[in-house]
């Protein structure tokens, strides 16, 4: 399918309810749809093979356009994306909910319920997601009239509004501070004996208001550095994704050499992130040898990053129109020698892991989620590829220099945690391969485009970057005053975490850390929320007191 055939199909089926495409979004299909028919059109897009990405809500009242909501869909096989936009009048910001059909839209809608005060009739779980439970109603931080630093007075001891435990189960709280979670997040796990029967999540505790901050305080060229600090692991991913979306919206051309250097940084980040995850996974199943080994192998990569960019994590490489530092021939040699060493070490690590029966026993069949379910929940990244969903933004929607590079996309069909281990291990070798090609093929030339006077306002840009955890989506609407009107960040954990309750279902409670860990959760990226599987239908076997006694006896 192409963009034209899709447009024709939609026009034929929905007639005047679909208008556009809007020329404000160069190279993308941005369609305006009638508000009442939104769920119908979204359903049709999914039936045509689209994957739901995320929604972008915006406050356009200053321009007399009321509130806007854009839903993004990707057609991975055909390599294009579609955005459908609806708007609602300022007095009644009401949009029909698409969550009953597309469960993964649940968080998006709850997010805008909190931040923009939208209402979604028909949403199955209209609860707070982003803002704290003591945040007063009626203050919506993303609305234009609310200053970025407005802090309403806090109230102490406000309980989380969790779902009721399904009958016959007991709630085990995990978090907000828990040794298996490296970031604050609260999981209420409903167990029947040792078996998990459901889970509710209250997270978004590291929500720092970055989108609002960047839409009101800083300028285009400063945002890449703030974007880098969204996440301490995939900093380059966010900076590159932001820069690419602004470049697309404004039509800025980036020098080819800069694009190759961006790829180099992205792949370097993937290697260190996957080794980091491998170590953490080993730690979560109580196998600290893997942790120590993986992080020992990873350390030379960090030193290399420091030699290339001057810092171990926050690289400060990407700016609009290119990158800030060049790769000299000496640095290229240095990269090659480190790659050689890391590749040899990871080969050893891989052989050890593939033969280790303990890791097999702790990961095989754990966190099982069939392919159909994974597609329904729009999983991305290694979590999806471990469930034989063959998607990778680097190949399906090539950006930067990926169209010139050849690499494989490893997949697994075991649909469990073991598959994610395998996929990530194999991806390290692919990254090494890509980096070698980058060093060979990198053309000479400038690394930064000439600066522009001013970027055009109210143009739309979308960028997808394959982060180590999956696809990161950035959506930018350019604005006046040298800063974006709207900047939406969707990290891969945002979608993957919504599928976690399904992965946990019917697993042992002892496997909870590794199942949550298997998506490589990054709450600081996500900081956004949840779904619960309810109702076990099973009869209650033990009462609470007995369970307590049993669990205590087991703990001794």
């Amino acid at each position, binding site marked *: 399918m192409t963009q034209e055939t899709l447009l024709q199909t939609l026009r034929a089926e929905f007639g005047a309810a679909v208008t556009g495409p809007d020329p404000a979004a160069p190279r993308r299909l941005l369609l305006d749809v009638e508000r009442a028919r939104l769920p119908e059109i979204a359903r049709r897009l999914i039936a045509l093979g689209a994957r739901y990405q995320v929604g972008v809500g915006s406050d356009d009242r200053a321009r007399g356009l009321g509130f806007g909501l854009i839903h993004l869909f990707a057609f991975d096989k055909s390599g294009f994306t579609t955005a459908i936009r609806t708007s609602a009048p300022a007095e009644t910001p009401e949009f029909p909910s698409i969550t009953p059909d597309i469960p993964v839209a649940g968080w998006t809608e709850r997010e805008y319920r909190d931040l923009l005060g939208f209402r979604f009739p028909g949403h199955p779980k209209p609860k707070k997601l982003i*803002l*704290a*439970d*003591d*945040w007063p109603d009626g203050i919506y*931080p993303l609305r234009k009239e*609310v200053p*970025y*630093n*407005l*802090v309403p007075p*806090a109230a*102490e*001891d406000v309980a989380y509004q969790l779902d009721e435990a399904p009958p016959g189960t007991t709630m085990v709280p995990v978090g*907000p*501070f*828990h*040794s298996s979670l*490296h*970031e*604050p997040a609260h999981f209420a796990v409903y167990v029947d004996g040792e078996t998990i029967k459901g889970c509710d999540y209250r997270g*978004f*505790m*590291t*929500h*720092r*208001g*970055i989108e*609002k*901050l960047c839409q009101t305080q800083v300028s285009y060229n400063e945002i890449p550095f*703030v974007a880098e*600090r*969204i*996440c*301490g*692991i995939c*900093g380059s991913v966010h900076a590159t994704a932001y820069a690419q979306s602004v470049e697309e919206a404004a039509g800025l051309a980036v020098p080819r050499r800069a694009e190759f250097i961006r790829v180099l940084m992205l792949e370097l980040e993937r290697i260190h992130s996957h080794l*980091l995850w491998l*170590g953490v996974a080993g730690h979560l199943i109580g196998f600290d040898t893997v*942790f*120590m080994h993986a*992080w*020992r192998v990873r*350390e030379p990569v*960090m030193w290399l990053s420091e030699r290339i960019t001057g*810092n*171990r*994590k*926050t690289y400060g490489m990407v700016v609009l129109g290119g990158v800030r530092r060049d790769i000299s021939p000496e640095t290229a040699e240095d990269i090659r020698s480190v790659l050689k060493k890391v590749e040899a070490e990871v080969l050893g690590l891989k052989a050890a892991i593939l033969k280790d029966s303990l890791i097999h026993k702790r990961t095989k069949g754990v966190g099982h989620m069939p392919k159909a379910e994974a597609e329904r929940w729009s999983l991305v990244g290694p979590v999806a590829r471990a469930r034989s969903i063959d998607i990778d933004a680097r190949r399906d929607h090539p950006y930067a220099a990926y169209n010139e590079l050849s690499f494989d996309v490893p997949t697994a069909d075991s649909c469990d945690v073991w598959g994610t281990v395998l996929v990530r291990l194999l991806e390290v070798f692919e990254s090494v391969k890509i980096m070698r090609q980058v060093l060979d093929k990198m053309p000479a030339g400038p690394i930064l485009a000439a600066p522009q006077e001013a970027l055009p306002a109210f143009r739309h840009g979308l960028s997808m970057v394959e982060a180590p955890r999956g696809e990161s989506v950035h959506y930018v609407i350019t604005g006046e005053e040298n800063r974006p009107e709207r900047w939406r960040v969707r990290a891969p954990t945002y979608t993957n975490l919504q599928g976690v309750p399904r992965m946990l279902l019917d697993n042992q409670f002892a496997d909870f850390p590794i199942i949550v860990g298997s998506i490589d959760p*990054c709450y*600081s990226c996500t900081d956004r929320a949840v779904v619960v599987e309810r109702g076990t239908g099973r009869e209650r076997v033990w009462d609470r007191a007995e369970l307590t006694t049993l669990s205590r006896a087991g703990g001794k």
Partner: protein
Amino acid sequence: MLAKLAKKAFPKSLWVYHCNSGACNGCDIEILNVLTPYYDVERFGIKLVGSPRHADAMLLSGAVTRPTLPLVKRAFEAMPAPKLVFGIGSCAVGGGCWFDTYNVSGGGATALPMDYYIPGCPPRPEAILFGVALALGLVDQKAAPVELKQVEFPLDASLRTQAWQDRNAIYKWLKD
């Protein structure tokens, strides 16, 4: 003074609890990194523990966000006295670049009595090791006090700059 107290209070091993109050993972990973073979913090008897009830010191990373503010306080209360608090990274020191946004209460000092700050974005593992070792009195402070001298009256300097610029402008006009 604090270093002496710490040396007395924690003569042998120090068990630390890592508390993420809203960090971006950068500092958290560097904290985990000091446990790994290249840095190996355990040779100083320092161990990372999973519960604040077992800990002597807290490593706080990240700006304290609105939802975590009461939680951080409760984790601190759960620690047995005497206790130390380290702020790791720019966000824990002063709140970072989002110190005043709607969901952030500020740096670590808004929630807890901080004892030591280890700045950096993120601080290197060596810096974390050095900071903790300094607190325990294992190493000496490297910074020396800076003596400030009155150099030149600033007005004088600005007048001279002005005069130089005027002269330069004349040469430029002559050239044109």
